[in-house]
């Protein structure tokens, strides 16, 4: 039971990280009609920049600095590439993001090399014990910070004019234009929000015991099954999908370590994703009319 609770807690913490990344995917998909395959690399950039700034600045400033850099990168890609390609069709745009992903990955290797680095999390390796269950501080920080970010996001979408304008744009682009909502700005805004979420996710994805390495972008892409499971156009779906993926990965790693060379848990999210695609292609919370988007 103790093992289950411990794994469950870790699963939820990892799941929240996936939820933040998955939310970024969904917000970009809804806000600008693109699926951004470079988003995983945005997460990697976020972690590397925090790590690079940490020795020179207080942690929170390193975090803010990384947000500035990563948002700037996202806006650059959005403005120079994607907005110009929008009328060329979805396939062109998606392939372009794949190209950007590979370029950013190469850039990271050029600047920081192929080796692994230290952790980039806000808290170290401490633990607390609650009723016999050992909880790492990094996991607690992950859950607390994610819940705060999710709440802020909810307030933004429900209570601010920009949040409303973004939802209106996602709902019906031409009608949004007719109300005087600047669609181009909304595209940029959705990318900027996704980039902020990527940086928050990145520091927890690189929290103890995990470290910063070039493969962090690949780990971040495990949010894709979360997006598909939850539904491409559902914010709630992204959170639920993230939690499901986090839980089955960690529980799978704990209980199925003897099978498949200890790698089985990495496959599980994708197996579930394929199952969902067959049974319920629009995901648990997605709308049926997803092909319209």
């Amino acid at each position, binding site marked *: 039971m103790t093992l289950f609770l411990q794994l469950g807690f870790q699963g939820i913490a990892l799941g929240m990280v996936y939820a933040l990344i998955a939310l970024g995917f969904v917000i970009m998909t809804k806000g600008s009609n693109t699926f951004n395959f470079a988003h995983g690399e945005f997460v990697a950039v976020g972690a590397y920049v925090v790590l690079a700034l940490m020795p020179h600045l207080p942690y929170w400033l390193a975090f803010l600095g990384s947000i500035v850099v990563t948002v700037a990168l996202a806006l650059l890609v959005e403005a120079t590439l994607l907005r110009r390609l929008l*009328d060329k069709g979805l396939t062109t745009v998606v392939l372009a993001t794949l190209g950007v992903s590979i370029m950013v990955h190469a850039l990271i290797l050029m600047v920081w090399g192929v080796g692994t680095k230290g952790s980039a999390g806000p808290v170290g390796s401490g633990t607390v014990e609650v009723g016999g269950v050992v909880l790492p501080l990094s996991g607690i920080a992950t859950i607390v910070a994610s819940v705060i970010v999710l709440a802020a996001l909810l307030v933004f979408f429900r209570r601010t*004019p920009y949040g*409303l*304008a973004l*939802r*209106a744009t*996602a*709902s*019906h*682009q*031409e*009608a*949004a*234009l*007719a*109300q*005087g*909502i*600047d669609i181009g700005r909304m595209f940029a805004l959705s990318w900027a929000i996704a980039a902020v979420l990527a940086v928050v996710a990145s520091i927890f994805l690189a929290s103890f015991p995990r470290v910063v390495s070039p493969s962090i972008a690949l780990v971040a892409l495990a949010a894709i099954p979360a997006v598909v499971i939850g539904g491409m156009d559902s914010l709630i779906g992204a959170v639920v999908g993230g939690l499901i993926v986090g839980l089955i990965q960690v529980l799978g790693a704990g209980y199925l370590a003897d099978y498949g060379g200890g790698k089985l848990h990495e496959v599980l999210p994708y197996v579930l994703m394929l199952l969902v695609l067959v049974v319920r292609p629009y995901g648990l919370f997605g709308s049926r009319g997803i092909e319209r988007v």
Partner: protein
Amino acid sequence: MSDCALAVHDLSVRYGAAATALDGLTLEVPRGEIVALLGPNGAGKSTLMRAVSGLLPVHGGSLTSGRVEVLGTDVTRLRPSGRVRVGLAQALEGRQVFPELTVAENLAAGGYVRRYRKAEAREVRERVLHHFPRLQDLMDRQAGYLSGGEQQMLAIGRAMMSQPSVLLLDEPSLGLAPKIVETVRDVILDINREGTSILLVEQNAAMALSIAQHGYILEGGRVVREGSAAELRADDDIVSLYLGVAPVEGAGQHG
């Protein structure tokens, strides 16, 4: 200040490499008036609306010549958001509400460019809603679940939230039951009486000419006839061509 709420000079429009959709079109909406724009499907009515509101690029169209002025301000180079700020609002053909958003949110989105403070937003909404008492009870309902007539009311109400001087209405009677068409017609008259100038595109020429002061008839992207509503109503050709013709549902996508 110009005495025209809306003035369109020598406007020509093309969609990609296709034939010219509008050909040197000139038209005016005097302040405080309702002007009806009539014509068969494909005459260029919706294209003109898009050219005026700045939505042409969405449909792959572009201006090859001409000028659009709102209250004497040249808006030809402005984006749609700039035109709304100057005082132009459009209720799109086919209603086009935000289906996932509530009625209240749809209305709020219509006031987006004005950056209202809370109290101000409430005041404007009250003023808009007195034209549409039916919407009062539906504020928390998702717009996608409203009836066609309610959606049309919402689309017009949403456009009115920016407190426009000029309102473009694209086929507001399309697909609505005769009784509801009458309600829509009364609302348009009410809005106009309170000072908003209106350019009204309609298949339902009888309805349009019954409330307009002036009318233009478009064919093949040109004005083929213009005159006071009374003149047009009295014209036998127009009566036989357009009046008594029932509104056609879903028609005129590129009209």
